[in-house]
């Protein structure tokens, strides 16, 4: 088969709307507020339907798990995406542009242990390594490597606070916003690893070929979230 020549102008496909991958869950509400403030009509996304994609003027909004956002954006299934910095740190080998700190959804990645309990230090001293449960195994491994310590990182998918309570781990690495969940489970912060907020990311090709539209949205979102 000979290669097919496709008619069309060189350059960006301005005719098509841009797709934005949005995080469901904790960031969903503030993300829609930010988009509204940036002049993007999110009424369809707010309506109580069970859709996964929503029309919003020049944009198509797609709702997904925050940790799936980098996957869709890297592959170009979405031109832009919003997700937490925690997700980007955990998936740091993704080829994405990180364009803007949206400043909402603030929380911290921390290492926590049982309150008033020296088990963390003790296991490190006597057994050579801490056992740490986390949903963020790559952030955890990097943290221990950077701080020159040995740890056994145990990946769990559900409530990570459970692990030290029943003796699966000596401590946890997790994202905390207010610290209430830690407190309720008798845990306390021992080390601060990194702050996290919502970020705007872009596909590498969309960032180049749809530069004007991308930059326009960055400016609108900057005005909406930085004031």
């Amino acid at each position, binding site marked *: 088969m000979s290669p*097919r020549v496709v008619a*069309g102008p*060189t350059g960006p496909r301005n005719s098509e709307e841009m797709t934005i991958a949005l995080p469901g869950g904790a960031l969903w509400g503030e993300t829609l507020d930010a988009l509204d403030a940036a002049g993007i009509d999110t009424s369809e996304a707010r309506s109580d339907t069970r859709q996964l994609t929503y029309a919003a003027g020049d944009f198509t909004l797609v709702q997904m798990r925050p940790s799936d956002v980098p996957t869709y954006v890297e592959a170009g299934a979405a031109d832009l995406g919003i997700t937490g910095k925690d997700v980007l740190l955990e998936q740091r080998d993704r080829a994405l542009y990180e364009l803007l700190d949206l400043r909402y959804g603030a929380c911290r990645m921390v290492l926590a242990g049982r309150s008033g309990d020296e088990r963390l230090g003790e296991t490190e001293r006597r057994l050579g390594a801490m056992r740490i449960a986390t949903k963020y195994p790559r952030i955890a491994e990097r943290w221990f490597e950077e701080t020159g310590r040995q740890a056994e990182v145990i990946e769990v998918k559900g409530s990570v606070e459970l692990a030290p309570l029943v003796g699966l781990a000596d401590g946890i690495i997790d994202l905390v916003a207010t610290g209430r969940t830690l407190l309720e489970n008798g845990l306390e912060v021992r080390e601060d690893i990194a702050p996290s907020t919502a970020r705007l990311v872009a596909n590498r090709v969309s960032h180049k070929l749809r530069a004007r539209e991308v930059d326009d949205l960055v400016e609108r979102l900057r005005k909406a979230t930085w004031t």
Partner: protein
Amino acid sequence: MIHPIPPGTRDILPDEMRELRAIESSLVGVFDEFGYGQVATPTIEYDEVLKEGESRDTDPAYRFFDERGDLLALRSDMTIPIARLVSTRFRDAEPPFRFSYIGRAYRAVSPQRGQMREFMQAGVELLGAPAPAGTAEVIEVLCKALDAVGLNRAVVGLGDADLYRQLLTEVGVEEDAADMIVARLAAHDLVGIETEVDRLEGLDPAARKTLLRLPAMRGGAEVLEQAHELGGDAVERATQRLQSTYEAVAAKGLADRVLLDLGLLRDLGYYTGAILEVYDPALGHILGGGGRYDGLMKRFGSDLRAAGFALYIERLHIAQAEEERVARGGPR
């Protein structure tokens, strides 16, 4: 019986192979037309030789010993083997040298569509032709190659590997801090650049603005003017080389095909000066890249200045399919 193959490799069956062969023969046609003779080099090389490339992300991933105990590696690109070939086999010949290749290379990437651990690259190397004329010739061949495989909407991003670092030096940023900032740029982390720039002490507010704005500047010729307006002489000096490359490309009538990108960096360690990336609007991944590697040949004992590009054949094929879908009005 089901017998597995290693992760990141795949079998190619006749229907796909026919289309891949058509792409290859279109590319070879263009390479021939411009006088780039095709060469082949071994898939395996001495690890030591490949290490001359000193590239961070494309270090050979597959290494093994031969029967004599020598450490061998599967090549991770074609540029270094060709640099070796030229310095060894063409020591007394008169440059410039024009070579093309189509061959497999190997990288330890996480496998996904269009990004396998074993992949086909096609490209050219032009050795002994300095910037900007040599660079412009390579970009011309690249554009004709994209046209030949039907990707006439594809665009070549053009940047300069040293531009941002030079700008940091121009505005007086010390080397350690500059390393941190360039690392953020290499990771495409514009938020991180702002964080690092704001850590600098005693930075002039105008310089701060230039450092933050420049990596996002991309587009046509107006980008260079905007950059000059923003940063004055420091930017003028840092963008001089890019400007002359752009003028040489424009003189070939290819200005529309090129997207100037002041924030472009490539992760191959050997690039100096102009760098290229290829984008097609129908595909979310880059189709290939390249640039100048004026310093690389020195590591092989020659002082030839050189430039080249490589296209990922499998991605060209996917882009063709996506372009057909777009042309039919189908979903992305």
